[in-house]
């Protein structure tokens, strides 16, 4: 057991300011109808709302000031993630502004960060979105030319820059690949959560810019920060579901009474409120650890993923169920949150995978 410093688990006034501006922008520019539209008409390129969000600094949060960024911390990024969970707008925030940005910063590819911070460039780490850790790479290099296939990469549709782990003898090296270049095919695929669509990437002798050093540390940092902040997104999803369902239960009448007056529902709401409260503490701790570079980050991220991913799914499922028929319709936005919550549960490792990993971290092996 490492000792735990007393983390700050509250929201600072500055963080609340950031939340307000992001929420306001999203409420104007990312309506439920617009968010749902991507299921029938997948985006080509990046959603226009991302430009607006980058405009208020969301793309720059995790980029150091010396590279044109805001030099903020994972705490502020977590606020953005919460709001992007409350709204489920299709944006590359998690994949580009969190994961890819963290990987590039750790790998020393700082020359790419300024364009990312400005929202002019969008990057994606070329791994299946379900990966909790760096898997054995499926891409090989032959005389500087990359070949191979990576499936189900989140954030790849619309990205102009791919960060590709490549086999290099016994180690793995990262290569930067520009999407427009020859031998690079990015094929978007239908996804359970179309608000964060996946793509399959095919490289056939593509040009790659090799980065120095072993890829593992940079990729691990990206995935770990991603998992920590995904918890805040899951918290946002859960909050929206709880609040929206509560509002509905107070107004929807059946048998002459608001359905929220039925005790069985009241008790489920109380249990869900508890779970969301607990998820908030877990997500906040993970964000704070990431912000402070605390050695406890790996534990905090897996705790948060184990707990928040389940709460988010539960909240979304209760949202659909307690809305009854209306919750099952395409017209009502509940389904967008259910799909996001369920996809987020698999993203960056399932809860069970995080618990298995946690066992190793805290000295509780399976056998």
């Amino acid at each position, binding site marked *: 057991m490492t000792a735990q410093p007393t983390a700050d688990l509250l929201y600072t006034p500055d963080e609340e300011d950031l939340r307000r501006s992001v929420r306001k922008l999203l409420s104007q520019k990312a309506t439920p109808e617009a968010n749902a539209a991507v*299921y*029938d008409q997948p985006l080509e390129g990046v959603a226009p709302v991302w430009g607006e969000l980058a405009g208020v600094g969301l793309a720059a949060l995790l980029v150091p000031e010396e590279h044109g960024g805001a030099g903020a911390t994972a705490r502020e990024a977590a606020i953005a993630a919460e709001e992007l969970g409350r709204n489920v707008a299709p944006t590359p925030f998690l994949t580009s502004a969190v994961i890819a940005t963290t990987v590039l910063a750790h790998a020393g590819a700082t020359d790419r960060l300024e364009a990312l911070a400005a929202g002019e460039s969008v990057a994606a780490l070329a791994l*299946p*979105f*379900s990966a909790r850790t760096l898997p054995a790479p499926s891409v090989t290099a032959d005389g500087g030319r990359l070949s191979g296939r990576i*499936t*189900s990469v*989140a954030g790849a549709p619309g990205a102009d820059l791919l960060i590709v782990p490549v086999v290099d003898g016994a180690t793995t090296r990262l290569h930067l690949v520009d999407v427009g270049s020859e031998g690079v095919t990015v094929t978007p*695929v*239908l*996804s*359970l*959560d*179309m608000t964060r669509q*996946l793509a399959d990437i095919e490289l056939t002798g593509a040009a790659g810019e090799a980065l120095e050093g072993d890829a593992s540390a940079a990729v691990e940092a990206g995935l770990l920060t991603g998992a920590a902040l995904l918890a805040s997104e899951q918290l946002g999803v859960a909050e929206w579901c709880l609040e929206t369902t509560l509002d509905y239960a107070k107004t929807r*009448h*059946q*048998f*002459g*009474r608001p359905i929220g007056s*039925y005790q*069985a*529902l009241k008790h489920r709401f109380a249990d869900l409120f508890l779970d969301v409260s607990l998820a908030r503490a877990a997500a906040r701790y993970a964000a704070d650890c990431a912000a402070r570079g605390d050695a406890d980050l790996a534990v905090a991220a897996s705790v948060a993923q184990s707990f928040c991913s389940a709460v988010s*799914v539960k909240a979304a*499922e209760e949202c*659909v*169920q307690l809305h*009854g*028929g*209306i*919750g*099952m*319709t*395409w*017209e009502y936005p*509940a*389904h967008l949150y*259910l*799909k996001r919550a*369920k*996809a987020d*549960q*698999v*993203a960056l490792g*399932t*809860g*069970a*995978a995080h*618990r*298995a990993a946690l066992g190793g971290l805290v000295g509780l092996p*399976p056998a």
Partner: protein
Amino acid sequence: MSDDAQLVRERTETLLRAHPPQSTEDGDFLAAQYDAGLAWVHFPEGFGGLGLGRDLQSQIQAQIAEAGGPAALAGINGIGIGMAAPTLIAFGTDGQRRRYLRDIWSGARICCQLFSEPGAGSDLAAVATRAVRDGDEWVVNGQKVWTSGAHKADIAILVARTDVDVPKHAGLTYFMVDMHQPGIEVRPLRQITGEAEFNEVFLTDVRVPDADRVGDIGQGWKVANATLNNERVAIGGGARQRETGMIGIVAGAWRDDPALRRPEMHDEMMRLWVEAEVLRLAGMRLGQQLAKGAPGPESAAMKLGFARHAQTLSGFEIELQGEEGLRFDEWAMKRPDHVDFNGRGPGYRYLRAKGNSIEGGTSEIMRNVVAERVLGLPPEHRVDKDMPFKEMPR
């Protein structure tokens, strides 16, 4: 074999001889089956039956199937055959029976059900669609929802409000409605899966002859309940093989694809396997009770169990599939002929299973039913029981 069984056997032989399935159109055969009293053998003579025991029907259907004849159209006209027809026998006039029963059995007229409304889901008696008397006709205005097959239906069974000054259960009336007339607009209702299994139906100044009113004015709640009870008879037993259905897909994936297996998910995999098996055994047990003429009170609870299981299992499947669980097979808006959980991907199963605890009575309503009717616990406090409909908070 009993005398009745013998009689029915012979009449079916005669039917098959007179209308050899090999050279008879299905619709014609079914019409002839109706005329021979072999459609609903427990219905009265002259209305598709012979007034015999209901259990003989399966013998008839087996005999016809063996000879290559058509099955009952319960699939495409389930609402007509399973709900409208018995309701007409119980509450209809002879004229109504003659007008509808033969066409329903033969498939000449497909039927849909105009019951649920946006404001009347679990609280079905709260329907607000109005029917106002105008001479020998009624004028109907309102909106219905969750209507399966409305876009293919020729007739509908409709519950509408004919009196807003009495408490909600007392002001309803039941009608047969021609779906091919002006003022009826059917719009597909797209669901969470992307498909539209159901419809919304908008009724604007639709005219229904009083001769198509089923039961008395104000008796609609009683008639509709008879219909819904017929719906519930269908559920129950049948000895299925182990690993039939969704569990077969999930366990099969675990069994056949070692790369999918995660030790940390094994206990949950087995927990779900056990739950599937226990539900199968309980279904078997219910079937055995039913066969002994003693249907168990458990049947009301089984719907809860199936919904819980389908939802947990399909949720688990997405996590088990991992990367594959993040992908989806088809979002295009389609109008499926039937629901097939197993012909689609895990994402579809997960989303569609969410409906299992809503359609045909939400799990919340089913728990009330089990608690009150099976376990004898006190009913919910009802504020609207004696309140005129128009004063009801909605």
